[in-house]
């Protein structure tokens, strides 16, 4: 167990070094004055250091600059955003709750619909149920996210007028930003709006989370199907059948529990897919999360935000991967070793 953790932490550190090095190299490639362009401003502390560096004759040393850059990042200083003139880290923290909220609901939808769909397809293998589920998931796999989003807006918001067009909550509500999670914050505004704001926020979540859930749902359903098929063919299931256990118990208790192990790995991998999808989903639905923030930063050539944003996002992805690995080791008895 300890070995798994330490190996993962090594991966994290190396990846962190690698990503920062990558960015640092990129700063050297950009034609403009890299310090200003990538860090948004020249810090006074830096210039004092730079002065010292000149005295020591290491002004041009990339190593020195890289260490300096690393030190800034490790102290949480990603520079200032060019557009808002605010620290990149606080911008990131400002936008991340919206993405997490959306991602959470999307994952929820993907799991609640994906796993049963996969189980249903596996237990009804080669019937119309299986074909239907496989076809639908294949479409979900193939549909361009941005087009899917536009289609849903067109049908449900513009044509049928049952869901809001975009955004996190109606503009008529004045919600104090406490946690950044709209569902929580709108509940905290209960004295003012009772539940009206909360339900409004919930309504705004429907379409974007469906769009964002589509691809992971397809992946999870297909993964569940193949994992279930493998499990159902194994001997202990046959034993269970022979023992006369109910079909329901066999499938949902004995079968699924063992099929879950590979499924969890897949869910872990979804964090990266989800964030990719979030870029497009948030753009379509004017959802003020990190995906939209990144796209805007690129349109505005706000390099400090791009750099800080990507670094933070990849750190999150790595951390999620690590926790999934830990979880995997925890639930998979085969990986546990006698102490």
């Amino acid at each position: 167990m300890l070995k798994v953790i330490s190996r993962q932490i090594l991966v994290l550190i190396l990846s962190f070094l690698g990503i920062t090095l990558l960015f640092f190299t990129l700063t050297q490639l950009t034609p403009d004055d890299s310090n200003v362009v990538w860090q948004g401003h020249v810090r006074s502390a830096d210039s004092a250091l730079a002065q010292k560096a000149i005295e020591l004759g290491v002004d041009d040393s990339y190593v020195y600059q890289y260490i300096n850059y690393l030190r800034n990042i490790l102290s949480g200083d990603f520079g200032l955003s060019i557009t808002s003139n605010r620290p990149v880290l606080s911008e990131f923290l400002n936008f991340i709750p919206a993405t997490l909220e959306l991602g959470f609901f999307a994952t929820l939808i993907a799991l609640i619909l994906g796993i049963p769909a996969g189980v249903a397809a596996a237990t009804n293998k080669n019937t119309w149920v299986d074909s239907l589920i496989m076809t639908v998931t294949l479409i979900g796999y193939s549909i361009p996210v941005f087009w899917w989003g536009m289609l849903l807006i067109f049908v449900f918001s513009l044509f049928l007028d049952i869901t809001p067009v975009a955004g996190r909550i109606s503009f008529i509500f004045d919600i104090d930003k406490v946690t950044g999670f709209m569902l929580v914050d709108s509940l905290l505004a209960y004295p003012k709006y009772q539940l009206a704001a909360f339900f409004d926020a919930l309504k705004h979540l429907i379409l974007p989370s469906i769009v964002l859930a589509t691809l992971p749902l397809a992946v999870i359903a297909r993964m569940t199907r193949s994992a279930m098929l493998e499990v159902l063919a194994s001997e202990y299931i046959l034993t269970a059948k022979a023992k006369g256990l109910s079909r329901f118990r066999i499938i949902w208790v004995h079968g699924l529990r063992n099929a879950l192990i590979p499924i969890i790995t897949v869910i872990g991998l979804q964090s990266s897919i989800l964030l990719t999808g979030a870029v497009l989903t948030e753009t379509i639905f004017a959802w003020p999360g990190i995906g939209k923030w990144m796209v805007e930063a690129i349109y505005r050539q706000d390099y400090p935000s791009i750099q800080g944003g990507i670094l933070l996002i990849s750190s999150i992805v790595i951390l999620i991967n690590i926790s999934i690995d830990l979880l995997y080791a925890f639930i998979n008895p085969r990986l546990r070793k006698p102490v």
Partner: protein
Amino acid sequence: MNEIKLYQETHIPGPWEEFWYQYKQHKAAMVGLVCLLIIVLLAFIGPMLIEHDPTVQFSESLLIPPAWEDGGSRMFLLGTDDLGRDMLSRVAYGSRLTLGLAVIVVFIATIVGVVLGAMAGISKGPVEFIILRLMDIFLAVPSLLLAILIVAIIGPGLLNTIYAVAIVLVPHFVRIVRAVIREELDKEYVIAAKLDGSSPTRLFLISILPNILPPLVVQITLSFSTAILDIAALGFLGLGAQAPNPEWGTILSQSRDYIQLAPWTVAAPGLAILITVLCINLVGDGLRDALDPRGSQ
């Protein structure tokens, strides 16, 4: 001359024959294959059959609906966009552009991925370590963000889209190739070849490469659909192919303004992407099952 069969011959299918036999079993995959062939064919000859140039603007015919709707014209089967350009022609030329780009992207990614993967797989130690960690880093950044980042640095445009999407695809190839090589290296026939004194290059070409092919082919098809989706996404965000290139994603980003008034300008390119990617994925599914009989049983 008649060949006289003296013996009751049992025909043992070769690997390709076997593969084709397996693939044919898969009905959906056959549909996908046929559909994909039609799309490729259309991309090649389609533009020749269409009378309008995709960039010519008929300033008298702006936002004409498709021919089967009220106000449609037989001149423009799928209607026109807001500059009076023929949608059918734009989508048809777009297929050439999108498919062509995707082929180039996947080609580059495959070559680079296989070379790096082989290097990582055959040589142990620092080379492997560096390559793998590098790929880890690339995998840690969500793919579209990575592509966007690359485009942000080198600037938008057709060529840069190719680099960006190819770089995103490389790590998957590296991982697969390395994994297969590792598996094969431990097998006895390879050890035997090694003991016979095969050079690493020879070992790779003769013993290992044939075993990589099946998973590689599957990965190539998967990458092909990813490439199309990513190219379109970049185009949609305004960071990929630039107007007036009729790249599907680029068309979509431009026609988004007219979704309420001219839904056909949004429907046509979107459907084109969906159908193409769907067919490729069908073929990919079929290939996987046919190449990996274990999964299909």
